[in-house]
């Protein structure tokens, strides 16, 4: 009964979802609209029509038309930013806690959330642009993704360099302060996970920090500690992705 949609239709629906999400529309509304269009495209294809008959001359113009009738989801955006900034601090605090040292400069305190927000903006804007440009060259697409991939490291390195060059007031936490902050950081990650109903914000820190901590207790040389920690992280992430993929596949059927 279920006739598979053509690749062109599926691509269009994917592009549309990316475009609307990265334009700050609510996830629920986006799902609503794409599912309705999917239903339409399925019937249209059964009747021998193509995406072009449904969408018209320009998919890009059509996406914009749909987008302009949907409200900007302020609550959703606040939620994402409100989730990312505390999470960034939580990761940094937990990392420092394991290394047993916690000093923050003013540049870092302002810089980390700033970098996080810039990255978020960059990622959404690139995806938004990409989703509407079906005829863009491979070269340009590749370069854009490469630049996007290099951006986090560039920004963090830039921030660190700036931090070294400019002397700003520093806060150093003692043992008690470190434990308090560590507790707050863990609490933050738990709250964010419950709030967003995703486990990823607990799984990644566990994979990232538990091996680091465990290997730090052994007498292994530092390089081996790092290598083993990385291996646990990558294998763990691989397993998580696989489980996720399996789960998604089951839901699609």
């Amino acid at each position: 009964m279920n006739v598979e949609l053509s690749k062109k239709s599926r691509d269009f629906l994917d592009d549309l979802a990316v475009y609307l999400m990265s334009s700050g529309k609510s996830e629920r509304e986006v799902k609503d609209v794409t599912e309705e269009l999917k239903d339409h495209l399925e019937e249209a294809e059964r009747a021998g029509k193509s995406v072009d008959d449904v969408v018209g001359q320009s998919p890009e113009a059509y996406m914009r038309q749909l987008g302009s009738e949907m409200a900007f989801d302020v609550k959703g955006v606040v939620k994402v930013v409100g989730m990312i900034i505390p999470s960034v601090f939580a990761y940094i605090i937990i990392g420092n806690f394991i290394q047993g040292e916690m000093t923050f400069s003013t540049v870092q305190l302002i810089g980390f959330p700033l970098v996080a927000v810039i990255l978020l903006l960059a990622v959404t804007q690139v995806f938004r642009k990409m989703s509407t440009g079906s005829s863009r060259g491979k070269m340009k697409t590749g370069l854009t993704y490469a630049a996007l991939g290099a951006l986090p490291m560039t920004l963090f390195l830039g921030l660190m360099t700036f931090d070294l060059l400019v002397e700003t007031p520093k806060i150093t936490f003692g043992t008690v302060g470190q434990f308090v902050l560590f507790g707050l950081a863990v609490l933050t990650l738990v709250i964010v996970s419950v709030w967003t109903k995703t486990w990823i914000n607990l799984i990644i820190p566990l994979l990232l920090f538990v091996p680091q901590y465990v290997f730090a207790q052994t007498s292994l040389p530092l390089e081996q500690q790092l290598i083993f920690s990385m291996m646990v992280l990558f294998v763990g992430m691989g397993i998580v992705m696989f489980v996720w993929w399996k789960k998604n596949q089951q839901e699609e059927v």
Partner: protein
Amino acid sequence: MAMSQMLKGLLEGCLLAIIAKGETYGYEMSEKLQAYGFTMVSEGSIYPVLLRMKKEGWVETVQKPLPSGGPKRKYYVLTEAGEQELMAFRKRWADVSSGVDRVLGEGNERGTFEKES
């Protein structure tokens, strides 16, 4: 190319009229439009208009499972405000179309449109 404002308004009125005949869903609406000869717009252009009509409170949507099972389908029904809007549209259309008809009819009687001398 964006649809002209006029065409959008006409599409809105026609969709109101189609939904008024009983609950219906997107593809069915576009089929009906085609059958009536409303072929100036692509099928998909009903969805931005439907989104706006929902925002205005003229229509409501209900999700119902397909007869064949499988995923749910979104059906549209007219609200009270929608019925009033449909009435208002009928009146606007009657005024506009009779006005345009008269203008065109007058032109026909004379055979040609005269140039100003």
